């Protein structure tokens, strides 16, 4: 009762990939997962979100549909922030966007770290394969 937002049960979908979005969300309680759906292929989890995280901001800044599905991993409480309220106040007070910009920058950094790690892993695998091939040739 003494809480804000809307409660989602475990497994319940908060936003669905491809839907038109007109709000962003702030997690008050619980964990959520972000999954990317591809036709004919299993969905891929791209992030786990926690209390205090904000999501759905891409639909606020771009006139695009939701880029991924967000689903509750545990029972979660999520507060909706209307696009209209937010954008209007950003016009009045641009510093309101600081927190979002900081959070998006953090996300880009962690994604580039992940991409770098993936590439390193791929390079290591290629080198190993090449070495094994050479070894076999020598044998």
């Amino acid at each position, binding site marked *: 009762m*003494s809480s*804000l937002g*809307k409660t989602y049960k475990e497994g319940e979908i908060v936003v669905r990939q491809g839907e038109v979005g007109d709000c962003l969300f702030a997690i008050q309680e619980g964990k959520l997962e972000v999954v990317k759906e591809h036709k004919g292929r299993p969905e891929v989890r791209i992030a786990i979100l926690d209390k205090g995280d904000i999501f759905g901001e891409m639909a606020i800044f771009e006139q695009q549909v939701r880029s991924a599905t967000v689903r509750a991993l545990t029972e979660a409480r999520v507060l*909706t*922030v209307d696009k209209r*309220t*937010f954008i209007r106040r950003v016009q009045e*007070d641009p*510093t309101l966007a600081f927190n979002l910009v900081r959070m998006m920058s953090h996300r880009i950094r962690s994604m580039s770290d992940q991409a770098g790690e993936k590439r390193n892993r791929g390079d290591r695998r290629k080198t190993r394969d090449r070495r094994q091939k050479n070894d076999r040739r020598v044998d």
Partner: protein
Amino acid sequence: MTSSRGNVDLARHLALAFEAEVGRLALSDGSRIGVIGGGPAGSFFSYFLLKMAESIGLNVAVDIYEPRLFDHVGPAGCNHCGGIVSESLVQLLAAEGINLPSTVVQRGIDSYMLHMDVGDVRIDTPLHEKRIAAVFRGNGPRESRPIDATGFDRYLLETASSVGAKVVRKLVSNVRKEEDGRPRLVSPDGSSAVYDLVAVASGVNSHALHLFGKTAPDYVCPRSLRTFIGEFHLGREVIEKCLGTSMHVFLLDLPRLEFAAIIPKGDFATLCILGEGVDEQLVQSFLSAPEVKRCFPGSVVPLPACHCFPRVNVVTAVRPFADRMVWVGDSGTARLYKDGIGSAYRTAKAAAKTAVFQGISAEDFRKSFWPTCSKINFDNSIATVIFAATHLIQKGRFLRRGVLRMTANEQSQEGTRRHMSSALWDVFTGSAPYKEVLLRSFHPGFPLMLLWNLVVGNLPFKKARRMARESRE
């Protein structure tokens, strides 16, 4: 460490020399800021100032003067206010990364129940989501056990402390100006400190407002109005049954009554009454109204566990800024009758932004901080028109019937344009600017639908039918 301190001192020394040379007043590394009052306005100001300063690598120190301990129950720990954090402020704070924890929110509000002599109607949020927070400013009313909850003011003060603000548990009894123009805050124990900037966030119920006659002679205190705040101990279950998660607002034809609401919170219900010259007599006549009694178990209104007659800002202060001084929250500018905490947030943030990015002279505040206050003032002048219309509804029974019918129809039909519901919602919650409410009422559908509902709602056979239904009930 010593060398870093030395660098800060050197930077500060250079900045002061620069200020003296060019006559520009600005914060620099090592600047000290004093904040009088640790309520929402003082905490918001400190929090945003420190966050913005950090973002540009500016190293400043903030002292918040607040003698009150917000974890005391009763008046000792309370800042005397209805304790509603509006829908728009809840959203903006979430976007700022300040999420009110469930220990602070005494109840999430998802709807308003409008009570009139012609009937009641519930107005829901379009998303059916709890986006309004009912909070205690202190640690609950007198009679309450120390609760497993945090008061809103304490939470905000801790939030400001978490980014580096220091809380000084002292009153400010005098403000003097040094030769170089910097203000000195003096405490009753004789201790004092000089600051580069002083933000006054003392509200309108504090003696601190009257300390600036000599230091800022152009500042004139805001005009304020007496209100009533009462806390009724009903118990969680009774509150759940009688009030639920709705805020109950009343449009009653009582002389001098402007607005009244009952807000459910934990074990208590908070009653707020606004009007001209609110006194015991007005409170009694309000509590005797059948529409009010119906909200209490067995239609019996218990004695309040605690009550007070605090004042609220109704006309903005004159020139709430001076060289090295700025007035935020109720001691400067506030929205008329609504969203006092939201006004504290807006003015405090505008003042912090000016101090960090523009400067701290009266001219800087006039250019960058005052427009925010002016916007609120302009909106307040529109509010007087809207409240005049609300007055008419309060006075005219036939108008109340039309409003009730129109709102009830809009609420019962999904997908219809909710002209009256959204206007009432925004007026009661204070979520949207009054200007927007007025503009929306210019939509041709609004007067047409109102006219239709006025006609149909006042048809004699409709009245007879309703009376028959009421007598059956």
